[in-house]
């Protein structure tokens, strides 16, 4: 009996040590890369993105068709509401253009600019952190790594982020979007994990203003599918 208890104890300790060593062996950048793999089904994909603004606004809804290639090419087509149809956007690297229907031409905008509600253009055009941000492990608890991300480039949506990533499955669960001075701008919750394009991914991102906490937007990802696009899709002339 004592022998059995000793075996169980040794096994348990070794298992715990094993888990701990497994967790420790990931660097911050590796964790970030794996979190990006959770959020993105592949190098090239399309999806429908529904944004519902809650809080004090009256629940306005927008629907976008998003075509993504890598982390530096995204085309966003506005499908709804009808009056905004044609206000399409193109992201190339950190540069972004929006098509203005009444001018019938594209003008430059920034990733940080508001798309609708609490959602910025970059919140749906740029779905990868790796390559854009330098990550450090700021802390961890029983279930999460807490990573602190600092922008490596100018013109990104946010200067700094704090991201909570679940141990074991690398699911992002929460992010704080911060100013350059480190003050919180918005909080994002990654929820509704379900099967999307062959993997378990967050189906909803809820973004809340850090100061006016009744200002909330929910980003719902739908119809995510891996798809190849020709180069001509990611061109200003495709914005019409």
């Amino acid at each position: 009996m004592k022998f059995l208890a000793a075996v169980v104890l040794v096994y348990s300790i070794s298992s715990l040590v094993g888990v701990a060593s497994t967790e420790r062996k990931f660097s911050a950048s590796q964790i970030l890369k794996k979190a990006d793999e959770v959020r993105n089904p592949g190098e090239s994909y399309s999806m429908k993105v529904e944004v519902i603004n809650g809080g004090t606004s009256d629940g306005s809804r927008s629907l976008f068709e998003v075509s993504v290639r890598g982390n530096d090419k995204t085309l966003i087509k506005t499908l709804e509401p009808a009056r905004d149809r044609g206000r399409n956007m193109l992201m190339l690297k950190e540069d972004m253009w929006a098509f203005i229907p009444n001018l019938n031409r594209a003008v430059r905008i920034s990733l940080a600019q508001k798309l609708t509600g609490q959602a910025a253009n970059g919140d749906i055009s740029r779905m990868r952190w790796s390559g854009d941000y330098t990550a450090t492990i700021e802390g961890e608890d029983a279930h999460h790594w807490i990573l602190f991300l600092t922008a490596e480039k100018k013109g990104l949506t946010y200067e700094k982020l704090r991201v909570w990533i679940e141990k074991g499955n690398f699911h992002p669960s929460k992010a704080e979007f911060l100013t350059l001075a480190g003050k919180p701008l918005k909080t994002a919750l990654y929820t509704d994990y379900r099967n999307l394009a062959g993997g378990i991914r967050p189906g909803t991102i809820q973004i809340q203003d850090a100061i006016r906490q009744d200002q909330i937007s929910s980003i719902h990802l739908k119809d995510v599918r891996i798809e190849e696009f020709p180069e001509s899709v990611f061109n200003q002339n495709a914005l019409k």
Partner: protein
Amino acid sequence: MNFPFRGLVFLFSLMAASAAFSESSLSNPTAELGYQNSFLLGSDSNRAVGSNPTLLTRSLFYFQPAWAPSFRIGDRTFETQMKVRAWLDTIPGGFQSEFSLRNFSVSTAQSQWRLVAGFQEIVWGETFGFPVLDLVSPRDFRDPLLLDANWVRLPTASLNAQYFYGQTTVQLVITPFARSPVFPNSGSPVDPTLGTPGVSLRNTSGTDLGGIAGAEFGGKLSHLFSNGMDVGLIYFHHWNRNPVFRISPTSPPGTFLVLPTEQKVETLGFTFSASFDSWVIRSDQAVHLNQPLQTGTLGTVSNGAQWQNVLGADYTGTDEWSLGIQLQTTLQIWDGGTLAQKWASGRMTKKWFDGKVEAELFVLSGLDNPDLWLQPKLTWNWGDSWSLALRADWIAYKGGAPSRGNLWIVRDQSRLLSWLTYKL
């Protein structure tokens, strides 16, 4: 059966035919219904509306359907774009109507190239107000106060080929049968001859531009640098896009006709934009060679060169507001003279209630000429489809020689415009 109705029947037939071959049937049909109403304010007696109101003084209803069906031939997908506009303008004792084809093109693409053939708008340049490089499409000058390029740009039947190589794009454009601009009608509020005894404007719809010999062609080479600077070089061989009028004697003796001058021009252009956080810096430059120039009074035309330069900056604030400022200069050189002019313009926008209410103010002022134009605009968006915009155009021509500045033709033509739209 009037022309707009016949046009719509024709378009529906085309669409039905395309649907028969279409992969996605009548995919993505959209439409815009609208009503525009404008009142002229403070016009002098020589510029009374009379019985021939045009786009400047309108009370018009329009319908603008669009379709984008696609079809396949073998392995290749073709996307078509079709859009028409039909409008009905009520005038005392009746109405006038117009049907215009806004887009009827087919495009196909492979990984590195895209080809668009047919009736289309091709847009170049980075500036607002007076777009100096937006040369491929001629303009409708019947309402010189309407800045909505979607309304005043005239599509052309062109072949538009683009080749993509990394961040470099090469674009070639050919318009085999050029299209002339649409000029104000004789007797309309912007007829430049109003109030001048013995002189009248010739209506010029459908000017012959020489068939295939009058073809327009050119291209654009653009590159997006890794620091975010977008640079483009342009060459275009085209008919002049600036409205220039010459005077010609007619019968009876002592009377004169004023006609638009149309001649071939070579344009070289340079455009760039770059973003720095919330700021975007942009510039368009164009040199037009063999450009007809309105020198002196109406009817005096000289040939020469014109250099147009616009330098602008846009700032986007975090709280739904933006500001754009521009400095525009132009230098005209012809045998016997030069003329240099400068303007400053700005546009400020602000949105409230999650974009439901938008306010915009556009101001243009001549720095060394009498132009002054203020355009405040307030837009109310409700539901998913409705918008109501109230806009004023206040033209305060500051005096001076009438040939100076760009707004002399609309001096004293301040107006109020309301515009209701419903999008399906």
